[in-house]
């Protein structure tokens, strides 16, 4: 039922979503932490920038990225100067674009979770001889764990369903940027409705499973250490 090309697209999609989720968590945890605890006047503007991809049409994001990362854009030229391969039409480029596109879906739940933890448990930990990193890993993170789960699942599911950005900057290259959503679109355009149906169902099942997993993982107690 699923052709090798379809399976390739599925594998690529999952690989992309996993990579993006992991990188966003690594980037998002310190960012969300800063947003939750800083009193700097940059807090609000930066929070707004983080939220921007929520309201920006994905095609707009893809378009601006294409211009920016292309040979005439600031980043593209910097890359060329450094001898690095250009980002459009590559898996790496898609990872970068997806990270921007899914940024608020990861950072916002983390931000909310850290704010909910508040400063009291951290004050308590400080009086019990825990230094800053100690407090983060042994108090803040375990208490914020449901938020981390939400962030990971939302980031993953959102990237799996991505289309607009991929359309603009992907180039639809098999094995590199031909993700599942592009494949479905291609099938529809070619009038291959049956395949489109099968793949759509696939995507639906993956998304549903992800959300179900999130619900199950969250209902457990906060992580024990």
């Amino acid at each position: 039922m699923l052709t090798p090309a379809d399976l390739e697209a599925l594998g690529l999609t999952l690989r992309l979503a996993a990579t993006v989720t992991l990188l966003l968590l690594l980037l998002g945890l310190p960012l969300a932490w800063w947003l939750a605890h800083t009193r700097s006047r940059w807090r609000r503007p930066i929070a707004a920038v983080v939220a921007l991809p929520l309201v920006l049409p994905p095609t707009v994001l893809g378009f601006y990225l294409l211009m920016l990362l292309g040979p005439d854009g600031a980043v593209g030229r910097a890359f060329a100067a450094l001898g690095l391969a250009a980002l459009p039409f590559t898996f790496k480029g898609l990872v970068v674009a997806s990270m921007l596109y899914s940024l608020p879906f990861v950072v916002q739940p983390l931000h909310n979770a850290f704010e909910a933890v508040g400063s009291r448990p951290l004050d308590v930990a400080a009086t019990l001889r825990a230094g800053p990193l100690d407090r983060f890993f042994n108090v803040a993170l375990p208490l914020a764990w449901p938020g981390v789960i939400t962030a990971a699942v939302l980031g993953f599911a959102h990237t799996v369903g991505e289309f607009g950005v991929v359309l603009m900057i992907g180039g639809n290259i098999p094995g590199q940027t031909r993700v599942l959503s592009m494949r479905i679109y291609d099938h529809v355009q070619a009038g291959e409705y049956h395949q489109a149906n099968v793949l759509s169902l696939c995507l639906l099942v993956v998304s549903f499973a992800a959300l179900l997993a999130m619900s199950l993982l969250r209902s457990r107690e906060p992580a024990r250490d």
Partner: protein
Amino acid sequence: MMRRLWQGLLILGSAFASVTLAATPEQQITVAAAADLHQALDAVIVAYRQAHPDTRVDVTYGSSGNLLTQIEQGAPFELFFSADSDYPQQLLAHGKAGGTPVPYAFGHLVMWSASIDMKGVQLADLAQPKFGRIAIANPQHAPYGKRAEQALRAAGIWNRVQARLVFGDNIAQTAQFAQSGNAQVGLVAESLVIDTSVKGSFVAVPSSMYQPLKQSFVLTQRGSKNPLAQDFANYVQSAPAKAILQRYGFELPNDTVH
């Protein structure tokens, strides 16, 4: 206060209704056209409207396959200008056409580059690494894409350049990839690059290397009820329109033997 609110809504509602009802399909034609016709068809419409100032022609450009799907699912287009003849034929075969497909032009495939001088370049030369990424339309469903694949195979370099291909969703996006410089060269429609302000150069791909791009249009079922649609279709086949199409690099059905 509530009464004022209701009054306001009523006025707004009737104004809205009158505006929309006023825009009756009486003097309007809705056209779906392949992406490669963008500039050419716009020019034809301008000429048409000089002769028929009261008629509105709304065009939606897109990939032919996509437009076909939309029409089959009930999209309100009256004329369908495809980049090939298969898609209009499919519309007829599925019983959704209001007439028979009529060829209106032959498209040409060219190699276009923003950075490399294409003068004297042969298709087989694209195998050279200096041509980097090659943009073609998606062969799975885009007529120009299918032709590009055929040509590359005919040149014997299809397997070699596989890894460097970049697929545009339609021929317009393919041209955009090449014009933005993200792809070093693109196999695009001549009609899209013949009159562009974007700096670059192009050279034709020999017609013998690919199946002819016989572009046909067809009236939809909806279009068969709008006499203006047929009128416009006739205009496209008339001399002034043909002259415009030729300017954009299209060959005309009567000119060559196919």
